[in-house]
């Protein structure tokens, strides 16, 4: 399993994907946080990082599917999936190794944003006037959000051998679960059910964690979606046996 994990990471690093994803993410979030006047911290003058946590999910909505789209689609297309599945490793090991490798790359792109935190910390008046606990909560929320997007991406990739199909499908599913449920619940026909519908989506849980309120129910929600998606991937891999 470690062998597959390392191979995936190596393959990211030896191709342009890793550098491109990290670069694009930092560029976009950097622009929003420090340059664009509407959201720039320097402009608004408040020592918080809210704009990062508002914009990051939307950037990841496109970037994570771009990372995960090749996970299984490429192996299916080139036939290496047959090679992998006839080696003495279980399907679960393959899925988890690939999942962790993709997630690692995503976390690599989040890590440098800690510099933003340090900058805001230093710019505060007085220095250090920032809600560190709230930001820690927001980071945890963002990491869980990425973990969910990655599992959705992996699932989409297992469905097809065409990487573009995998990408589009992953963006759609991620969008649906991130924003879709929330927006759907706002339609004025559900009555009391609207709360439940909103709770099905990520936005509800992400916002509550972002406030710095780490509730076990929210964590349970994220973990359930991840397990659901990875089990779905296993089911699809098994479908060769039907």
């Amino acid at each position, binding site marked *: 399993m470690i*062998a597959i994990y390392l191979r995936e990471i190596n393959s990211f690093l030896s191709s342009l994907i890793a550098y491109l994803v990290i670069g694009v993410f930092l560029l976009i979030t950097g622009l929003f946080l420090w340059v664009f006047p509407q959201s720039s911290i320097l402009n608004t003058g408040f020592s918080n990082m809210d704009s990062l946590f508002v914009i990051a999910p939307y950037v990841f909505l496109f970037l994570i599917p771009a990372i995960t789209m090749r996970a299984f689609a490429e192996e299916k297309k080139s036939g290496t999936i*047959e*090679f992998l*599945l*006839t080696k003495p490793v*279980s399907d679960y090991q393959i899925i988890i190794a690939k999942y962790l490798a993709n997630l690692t790359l995503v976390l690599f792109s989040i890590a440098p944003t800690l510099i933003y935190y340090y900058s805001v910390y230093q710019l505060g008046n007085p220095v250090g006037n920032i809600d560190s606990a709230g930001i820690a909560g927001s980071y945890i929320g963002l990491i869980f959000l990425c973990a969910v997007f990655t599992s959705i991406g992996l699932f989409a990739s297992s469905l097809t051998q065409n990487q573009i199909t995998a990408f589009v499908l992953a963006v759609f599913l991620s969008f649906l679960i991130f924003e879709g449920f929330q927006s759907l619940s706002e339609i004025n026909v559900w009555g009391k059910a609207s709360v439940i519908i909103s709770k099905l989506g990520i936005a509800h849980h992400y916002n509550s964690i972002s406030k710095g309120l780490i509730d076990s129910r929210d964590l349970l929600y994220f973990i359930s979606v991840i397990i659901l998606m990875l089990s779905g991937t296993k089911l699809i891999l098994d479908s060769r046996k039907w």
Partner: protein
Amino acid sequence: MSVIVSHLTKTYGEQKAVDDISFSVDSGEVVGFLGPNGAGKSTTMKIATGFIPPNNGTVNIEGLDIQDNTIEVKRIVGYLPENNPLYLDMYVYEYLKFVAKLHGLKKTYHKTRIDQLIEMVGLGRERHKKIEELSKGYRQRIGLAQALIHDPKVLFLDEPTSGLDPNQIVDIRKLISDLGKEKTVVLSSHIMQEVEAVCNRAIIINRGRLVADDKVENLKKKIQGSITFHIEFAQAIDADKIKEINTISAVKAVSQTVFEVTSKSNTDPRSDLFDLSKQNEWTILEIRTLESNLESIFHQLTQN
């Protein structure tokens, strides 16, 4: 018995890709799996290596059932899939190391084993190249090396020599023959000469059904094979006179001097042809076999 396949059936939708196939292979045997395209060779191999399960029937390898002990079976089986899929973005050495790790070989053993294999399949000069830079012949060697890395007891090779040049084919066949001395080898092919050259036994399948399973010599003897010769004379000759030879069933004139002569079953008309030429003072420039016995057997078995 090293490999026992019994009553194997696999259907894709309506179509039966493999239909009630049973055979067994002894350890140390090299068996050729023959059949036209789409006969079910690859499907059988995919089932035997645990990639897909059968609808019916069992595969038993070294006493382990492939369905019940999938992982254990994969540890003792080496498999070269059809079209030899490889991670093209990896380096040769890196790739083989990855396979060694997948098989859980001891870390200290990696280098010795990989060096050994690189030597064995003749990859010495390419070991530091990226796989995508290599030609098909070298990729095929890497495919073989990855199948051999854990010193498997049983080898399944799906068209191991496809796409190789004649020299490489000779090398790979020699390697397979050597491997066959201590391992069980099942190789699929649609090239008769290959099976004649390396296999002790041939299993012929057609449309998912087993049509023959015997030693290569026995197959040749058993079936009433006729042989077609290509014969060229120095001068124009009278084809009717050739037809009069009683070991010959048909003569086809390619040109005035070139003929394709088909023998009657189990006969060799070459000495008769020579005698006839001597009587008529014809000069034979060339006689060669167009179709070997095994090929004609194959045609007979798989054409209906």
